[in-house]
């Protein structure tokens, strides 16, 4: 028997079949992997693709920050040009006025989007800030997913006291509102840093907000993972592996974990948006990225007091933040639908 695997409804033919009736059947999907199927579904979800591309565009722009800074803007993200005077269309304009108001968008290579109150090129800081925000978002998501998967796997697979211990620990973290907990941790760690054995992070390190964000979201991912593991551990293939004498670790890693992949993939996309937003909130409040490093949150914070005279200082980072988060969030939703159209799991807060 040959199947073309295209799923287009072609009728199978039997080689050497004699006298057997040929029965037409519906569209065939046999032989198509789950991920390929998901990709097909995703390919037809134009909304998800559009927003996914939007997110990708933001990422690429931010990755190109050093190129933009060096070859177009000719200034670094922390270089201050407070007393510099620009010649715009034959007119001399201060980068920062005597009353402290920065220059607006020039739409030229230098100060394309204007300057901030400290005389720094906003476009350059916006892109560098994006790198920081996206990097923290990605790393924090990795921390959340890795920790949550391990804890969810162990709690769900072993059940009993291990489950109780892990679940109660997660409950404690869950008991605090995410933002409140993150701000409290961020503020206290931003002052003195952290020192645990050989691991030492000073207060200005971007790994601090990464850790804070990564940890506070663990229960929100670990809980659903645990639930899914509880169901999976009762399935026949797990019982079969157990009957064959496979070790617990092998069952968890080799049998259960692969079946969690689609859930985890969905969580990664949704969690990334949450992490980026929380980073912006923490940095806005001074508990995240520390100056002079730029992030979308610190840019929003610096622009807010000047909103009435220089709204672009707030609008520019806000636009990129919204574009990135909306992009990855809607793409994540599309991914969820594609991977498992019946699934109801969401990274809800």
């Amino acid at each position, binding site marked *: 028997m040959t199947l073309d695997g295209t799923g287009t409804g072609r009728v199978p033919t039997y080689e050497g079949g004699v006298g057997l009736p040929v029965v037409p059947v519906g569209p065939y999907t046999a032989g198509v992997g789950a991920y390929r199927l998901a990709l097909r579904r995703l390919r037809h979800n134009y909304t998800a693709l559009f927003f996914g591309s939007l997110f990708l565009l933001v990422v690429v722009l931010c990755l190109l920050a050093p190129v933009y800074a060096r070859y177009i803007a000719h200034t670094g993200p*922390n*270089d*201050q040009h*407070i*007393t510099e005077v620009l010649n715009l269309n034959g007119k001399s304009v*201060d980068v*920062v*006025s*005597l*009353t*402290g*108001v920065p220059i607006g968008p020039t739409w030229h290579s230098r100060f394309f989007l204007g300057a901030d*109150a*400290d*005389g720094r090129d906003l476009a350059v800081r916006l892109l560098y800030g994006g790198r920081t925000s996206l990097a923290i978002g990605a790393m924090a998501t990795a921390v959340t997913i890795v920790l949550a998967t391990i804890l969810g796997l162990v709690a769900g697979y072993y059940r009993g006291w291990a489950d109780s211990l892990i679940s109660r620990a997660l409950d404690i973290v869950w008991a605090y509102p995410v933002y409140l907990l993150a701000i409290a941790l961020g*503020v206290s760690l931003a*002052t003195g840093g952290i020192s645990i054995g050989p691991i030492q992070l000073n*207060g*200005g390190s971007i790994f601090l907000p990464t850790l804070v964000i990564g940890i506070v979201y663990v229960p929100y991912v670990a809980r659903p993972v645990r639930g899914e593991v509880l169901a999976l551990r009762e399935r026949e293939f797990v019982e079969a592996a157990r009957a064959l004498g496979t070790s617990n670790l092998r069952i968890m890693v080799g049998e259960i974990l692969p079946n969690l992949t689609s859930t985890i993939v969905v969580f990664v996309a949704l969690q990334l948006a949450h992490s980026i937003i929380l980073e912006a909130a923490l940095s806005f409040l*001074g508990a995240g990225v*520390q*100056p*002079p490093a730029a992030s979308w949150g610190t840019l929003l914070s610096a622009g807010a*007091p*000047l*909103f*009435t*005279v*220089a709204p672009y200082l707030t609008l520019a980072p806000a636009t990129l933040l919204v574009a990135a988060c909306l992009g990855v969030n809607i793409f994540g939703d599309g991914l969820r639908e594609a991977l498992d159209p019946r699934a109801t799991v969401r990274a809800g807060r």
Partner: protein
Amino acid sequence: MKVGWGGDSFYTSNIVGAAAYQAGKSKTISGIVTNDATGQVIIHLLAPYGAFDNVLAFPSSGLVPTGTAMTALSTSPPPGVGSYMITSVKPNVSFTLEKNPLFAGFHIPGIPVGYVNTVQVTVQTNADTEAQDVLNNTSDEFDWGDVIPPAYVAQVQTQAKGRYTPETLAATDYFWLNTHIAPFNNILAREAANLAVSRVALQRLASGQITPTCYYLPPSIVGAASGACPLGDPSGNGSFTASSLGSPADIALATKLVKKAGLTGAPVTVWTENREPFEAFVTYLNSQLNAIGFKSALKVVSSGVFDPTIGSAKVDPQAGWGEWSQDYPNPGDFYLVLDARSIEPVNNLNLGYVNDPHIQSTIIRLDKVQSSDLPSVASQWAALEKYVDSKDYQLNFGYEVSPLFLSDRVDFATAVFQPVFGDDWSTFELKG
């Protein structure tokens, strides 16, 4: 002294027996002798202290009736003598002043008796709202202790013409450079830092609300220096003399000095509190230090813990933002931050750890001069200013400016701004 006032050292360091009283070792201050019959009060000092009459003028030195509790009385203050009296206090919300009916009868020359009957003060923590309220005439005075938000400066300057004026205070903003540890124990490093910083840039970061300078003593203080800034060794040898005001940053020369000192790549941490414009000042210093070859990092600390943090010998910070606002109009008060006797393991005032024999001997000699005789030693204080600049002990950059900003209802012409206490409410008169 019993309510934990931060300036209690003005008494404990000068009055005989005050330290023992504060420590609870005696029930009275042995150095203060009173005579109820004659009304005479005699205060014995540990050593001659010329500015002591200024200390006696502190509000905390005011006389209160016998039996006044030795506790904080902010909600029900003891009576004093003045043109207004506090009649009600809602902590952190508001307080009310009413005209003192007896004050006019005292006929104290030079002290106004007050015009308006009641002054209602409402605590407003949002400077934007405060500025808007005064602009719209829904509030009569912008607190002189607040800074007009940058977003409103231009608007206030144009829209409130005739009821706004920037007043230079007797307060100096500076960067302290720790002279007892690397790299700023090297005069070349300090000189480089001084050259790398443009006072005009810092003025813009303050939305124009500082007056650029390289000297420490403000113009209203006896002994203030003027003219060219002798940054670095005034005798020459690769040193530099900049124009006193608005000196542009000389990055090239500063970089050379850092290189000459062998300090390229030397790590520096600069400290600031998380309040504008101070954070912007230190962000700029950090950027300039990096530009001239140091490896500088910025450390931002919450405002509430900034002073105790940088004042701790354990932290021993390298550089950061500092401000001295006069306690009284005497150069000796300003020089507390350069006085080796101010170096303490906690709450250190001398953050630059400056311990220079010449400065020390001059301060000790000039501190004995009575306030009334200060003009006679003005040139000696000015010479000390030049000396401090020549050693680059600290990076002075601006005299603070405060707004006298009133509503249209108040007669701006009669309103007086006091360099020490700010807006004088007893001079506020409603128009018409």
